[in-house]
């Protein structure tokens, strides 16, 4: 899972749409990630195709995306993997 995927899934724990989603990503990453709109929509398209996210509502003007159950499982798995990586890395701090 790429970093962009990870943060979009994370941000979509709360259903959201387009521009606000970018703000939400910036927020959950503590301002570290300013995702470009091209990347955002590229990843949204791909996640949707992989059924990791879904469109909650589409009133023609704006689409609201949300994470799916499958998405949550994938995110959780990735989270566990990252956590283990952090734990394994402890030796660096001595």
């Amino acid at each position: 899972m790429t970093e962009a995927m990870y943060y979009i899934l994370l941000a979509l724990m709360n259903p959201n749409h387009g521009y606000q989603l970018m703000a939400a990503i910036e927020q959950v990453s503590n301002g570290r990630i300013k995702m470009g709109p091209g990347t955002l929509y590229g990843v949204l398209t791909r996640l949707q195709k992989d059924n990791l996210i879904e469109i909650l509502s589409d009133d023609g003007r704006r689409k609201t995306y949300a994470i799916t159950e499958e998405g949550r499982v994938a995110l959780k798995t990735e989270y566990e993997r990252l956590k283990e990586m952090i734990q394994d890395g402890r030796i660096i701090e001595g």
Partner: protein
Amino acid sequence: MGKIVKRLMLDDIYAIGRNESWFSAMASEGLHLKKSGRLFVYFEKGEPKKTKYRMDYLKEAPSQEQLDVYHDCGWNFITNSGYFYIFSADEKSCTTELHTDPIEQGFSLSELNKRLRNNLIIISIAMLLFLGMMISIYYFNDEPFLLMIKGQFVQQMLLVIVELYVFYSVIRNYITIHKLKQSLLQGAEINHNEDYRKARLLGGILAGIYMPLALFTIIIPFVEFAKSKDYTLPEGNANLPIIRLEEIEKSSNLMRETGYNGNNVDWANRVSYDWNLLAPVQYEIDEHGVVRGEMWEDKSGVYSPSITTRYYKLTFGSMAENLTLDLINRYVWRDNTEVKDINHPKFDKLAIAQDDIHKQIFAYLDNQVVYVTYYGKERIEEIIPLLAQKMIAYQERMAEVQ
């Protein structure tokens, strides 16, 4: 609105970084991208402005919401060329880069990469079939040189070159996207200021060669058609490289025997002229006569001699020998007919075949090839000197005209 300026799209549309860089360079000269097609790119004349451009590959047309989001980030949609959507932003504005994750961008090109690879496979097969067909047309033909002269050889060869260019473009498309995808997946971002000059120059040179060739390929058949003509052989002197019946036959009772008349041409006494790049002068001329009061030796009917001449003036004299051999191969049908080569000072090659009243002469001199068929009583040995005269005279007349 400013004036619209058109420029050839000389580079590969898939060379994203180079095209973006080119658009920026144009904008800084006051030419702002308006529309992009496969062949032409349209710019609107205005004030020079530092502008950055981004090409985004979007499989699905972006929704208004998506365009709004791009816009809120500083990117204005300009135009699209196929699946490539082009956005621009002021160089000075603090916009978020369109793509912030090269690996994700690499993924987005995977589908395109696959499509171009399939294209390449299909066109490779088509190319192989096409080349195979072209080669077999000439390789398996018994008279390839005759086919070249009578057929569309030059046009076919040009077509091969044009096809090769198309093939080259498809290969180039695929390599460009494949390389781009690989480098993105390795985390390298697109160089938005990549030098575009060399690629455009090369593209320009190739297009400069290819387009006239393509045009030429289209025009040739029309020229051939326009130049070709059929008409009835005049009774008097026609300034043609042929022996007339009256020069061969001894009887003063010789009259013309007319045949089927269609399109105002007497097809028993007709001149067909054709033009071809390899043989700019081609004649096929028939003449039929009848001698009242005289019979064929076997008493089968009234004596009616005829002569057919096929004459070719070649662009390349080096083809004369092979064309003559092809003519012999094509027109001497009977296996037991003996073809005799004769050393004759006036010809580079002379061969004759004789089967009772059917007499055939094949000859070439420099770049003139001639084949004469005569049905009649007169002896072939008496016709040969006449033929030599005609060819030399025609050659001299042509030299005078030029």
